């Protein structure tokens, strides 16, 4: 096996081992249908493997993996013409209708219900905001989210502040930074 192929394979192996679960969650943020989601996940893995033939170490493996994954998933959203489905910016999140009701049996809300609420919220966001919220939920620092998206760290910090406010409103999130969340470093 040529040297480049071996390095491509081992990079992919490492990425799949380390970020496999995160990639699965990322696919859930872009596609609700389990069948289509599996195809999307396969596509993400395939693009990831292929991209490692030109991995130049200029950014970390994590940044690389998330960039490729988000770009493939965003391409999926555009191809499926989901942009027509009135996706909103974080700023317009209040316009989202049919979000499972928080007031409804709030105390006894199950994990799956809460997850459904979160997924519905994510699914209605435009790609860029979706990328930021998913990265935030994965607990990434603002600097990494900035590297992935290409937005400035200050801008990411501002977006995260907004995300925290929204999540607090919808989920009664505990105090900022208590759960190893995002640091605007």
């Amino acid at each position, binding site marked *: 096996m040529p040297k480049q192929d071996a390095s*491509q*394979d081992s990079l*992919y*192996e490492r990425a*799949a081992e380390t970020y*496999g*679960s995160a990639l*699965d*969650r990322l696919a*859930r943020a872009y596609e609700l249908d389990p069948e289509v989601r599996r195809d999307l*996940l396969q596509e993400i*893995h*395939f*693009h990831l*493997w292929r*991209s*490692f*033939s*030109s991995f130049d170490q200029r950014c970390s493996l994590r940044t690389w993996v998330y*960039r*490729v994954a*988000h*770009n*493939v998933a*965003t*391409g999926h959203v*555009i191809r499926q013409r989901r*942009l*027509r489905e009135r996706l909103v910016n974080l700023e317009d999140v209040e316009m989202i209708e049919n979000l499972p009701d928080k007031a409804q049996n709030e*105390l*006894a*809300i*199950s*994990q*799956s219900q*809460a*997850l459904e609420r*979160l997924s519905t919220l994510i699914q209605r966001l*435009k*790609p*860029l905001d979706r990328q930021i919220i998913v990265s*935030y*939920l*994965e*607990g990434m620092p603002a600097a990494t989210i900035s*590297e*992935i*998206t*290409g*937005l*400035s760290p200050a*801008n990411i910090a501002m977006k995260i502040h907004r995300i925290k406010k929204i*999540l607090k409103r919808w*989920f*009664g*999130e*505990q105090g900022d930074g*208590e*759960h*190893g969340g995002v640091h605007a470093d």
Partner: protein
Amino acid sequence: MPTEFHNNDPQNLWQSQPTEAFKMSADTLRLKAQRMEKKARLAVVWAAAIGIVLFLWFGWGFLRFAETFQSFRLGPVGFWTMRLGFGVLGLWALYSGYKAYRILWPTSAASDTDLKTTLQAYRQELEKRRDYSQNIWLRSGLIVCFLGIAMVVTPVMARDIRQPLQLLLNVGPIFALFILWLAIFLLQRKRRQRKLQQEIDQLREFQKEYRV
């Protein structure tokens, strides 16, 4: 099930959701890449073959026009218009085969979109879609195709103009369908372009505002 999963901590909730251990082996991925390349090459071969067959067919029509369409009894202008129409359609068929090759022929390198920041990639993808949609008539060669069809059909229609009712009955339904298709196509295209442009403008404003 009542909450035990810190549902008020979305990060915890998100990260603790059950996931599937999904991984593809390098051999499977390589096989998939080969299969995709093979499929794309086959699609190009098919498109090229259809293009060549159509080119030969129209080319034959162009070269042997006098013998083949003798029974059409066209005047000299109609004769040359229709004959050149076959020539135009032949060239369009060749061009279509070439376009299929340019679009479908697989490259083994990773797409550069994969490696850009997500903001760049998103904007590039939207702009690509908008540009493609804007120039679809030129890119797909549809203008040339319609020109060729018009050149072939017009002389026959002009010949039959002395029997307008018959002409209307012959071409009316096809013409009406064509107009309907064109109207739907143009409306959809306009809507799609407007949506894409709105999104691109928003991204531009965003980039300007935050000097990204």
